[in-house]
């Protein structure tokens, strides 16, 4: 019965997509209205501008064509302002991976320490509470000023935005490890490092993974904005560049791909999360 249910929901999804595309198509159809401009002017600019006023918003078919074009040659590189969308996405993903990875290296050990010690937790809590709500982009000028490199600054911004959910979740996960498991390792005289790796880490892993999943989502949200600011490469810069080119179709292609990559990242972490979750 589950298979049937799944099939029906799939059918409904297809239907919703079809309706959406149809509305889009109608809304972006060329309006074949009467001549709306001055006759002199029409002569000057040619008939296309004067009569069949084409809506500037691309139709689904045009976006589809652009998408196909972009995906059939994603890695071309024709200079600074004309690179394939695959190259741009690779830049963004690698910045996210680097910033997120560095954040994990800091947040997970620090979260361990905070979670183990009430004293350190209480001492660091006010700092975390103040730093956490700061928009990561607010750090950008400071990063550019101190790091003096736009690429490093973008990575720093990713670092700073992905650190908080991981830090807080690790601390909570570690603090919430059941006392009986700690007692077992105490009666077995398990050495601190072994206890951390064999008992506390697996016990807190589901909570830590939840934090990592939230972090990677935020990092992927922030990278687009960060790249719009720092420029040069990346999907965020691509979107901004296509805006300057007034190529709405390319922007839509990028928006779609940003969504797909974000979904894939989330799916990876959902899978990791399942792998470390234990049933009690």
């Amino acid at each position, binding site marked *: 019965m589950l298979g049937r249910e799944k099939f029906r929901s799939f059918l409904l999804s297809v239907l919703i997509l079809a309706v959406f595309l149809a509305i889009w198509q109608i809304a972006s159809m060329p309006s074949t209205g009467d001549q709306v401009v001055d006759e002199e002017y029409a002569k000057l600019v040619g008939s296309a501008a004067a009569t069949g006023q084409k809506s500037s918003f691309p139709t689904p078919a045009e976006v589809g064509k652009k998408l196909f074009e972009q995906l059939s040659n994603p890695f071309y590189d024709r200079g600074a302002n004309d690179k394939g969308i695959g190259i741009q996405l690779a830049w963004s993903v690698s910045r996210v991976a680097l910033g997120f990875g560095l954040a994990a290296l800091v947040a997970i050990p620090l979260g361990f320490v905070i979670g183990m010690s009430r004293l350190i937790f209480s001492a660091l809590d006010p700092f975390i509470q103040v730093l956490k709500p700061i928009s990561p982009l607010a750090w950008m000028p400071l990063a550019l000023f101190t790091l003096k490199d736009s690429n490093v600054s973008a990575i720093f911004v990713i670092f700073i935005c992905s650190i908080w959910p991981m830090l807080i979740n690790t601390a909570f996960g570690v603090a919430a490890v059941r006392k*009986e*498991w700690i*007692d*077992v*390792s*105490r*009666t*077995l*005289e*398990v050495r601190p490092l*072994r206890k951390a790796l*064999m*008992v506390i880490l*697996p*016990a807190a*892993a589901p909570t830590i993974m939840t934090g990592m999943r939230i972090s990677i989502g935020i990092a992927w949200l922030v990278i687009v904005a960060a790249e719009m600011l720092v420029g040069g490469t990346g999907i965020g810069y691509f979107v901004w560049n296509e805006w300057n080119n007034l190529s709405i179709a390319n922007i839509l292609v990028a928006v779609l791909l940003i969504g797909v990559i974000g979904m894939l990242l989330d799916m990876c972490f959902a899978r990791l999360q399942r792998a*470390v979750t*234990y*049933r*009690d």
Partner: protein
Amino acid sequence: MTQGFLKVQGLRKAFPAAGGTGELVVFDNVNFEIDRGDFVCIIGHSGCGKTTILNVLAGLEEPTSGHSFVDGREISGPSLDRGVVFQSHALMPWMTVQGNIAFAVRSKWPDWTKAQVDAHVQQFIDMVHLQGSENKKPSQLSGGMKQRVGIARAFAIQPKMLLLDEPFGALDALTRGNIQDELVTIVRQTQQTVFMITHDVDEAILLSDKIFLMSNGPRAVLAEIVSNPLPRDRTRATMHHDPKFYELRNHLIDFLVHRSKTFAAA
């Protein structure tokens, strides 16, 4: 030296009373000795501090005052010398049955090879009759099987003594009976010294050589130490035919129902 293998002197546990005036004494002036190879059960109503006493012996809690010694050495913290079976079995849910026991074995003998550890673990899995469940996770086991793993884990480190905190409390009567029988067999084979908390009078009579009776808390004391007069080879199936069984049982129940309330420290 088998006499006074475990010695407890003047044990007392108190907490600051709510409101900040005075203190709440859980138990006071608890003294006892357990000889090597003895099986001792401690019975008392909730709140008399049985679990605290066990935790002190395990080294997991500190008494407010008093001392306890195992094999002539004062208890100053948890130790591999004392195996603990927890009421809630306390297995690591992300490890298999084999993994849980091997974790304890490797803690005790960190230098052993994998083959040595595996062979040792298997021996104790066989002991509690869990062959075939080696690679199951605790969530796939019944309550009785989980507690068997807990028992195997405690025995596997071959401690000098075992501390059991109401290990069968959460089990149904049938399972409880079966595991009690297994425990009797294992303890008789291994000559383990055991200190066990229970609420179940029949369980205490079946298992223990001596039964410690605690008066009610607060300010509980060790009221009485009863030696079990039944022969050591008693079994669950036959012991209730022994006339001494009811005499002992009545004595224990009388204590729990009446005297535990009125017992005042001398």
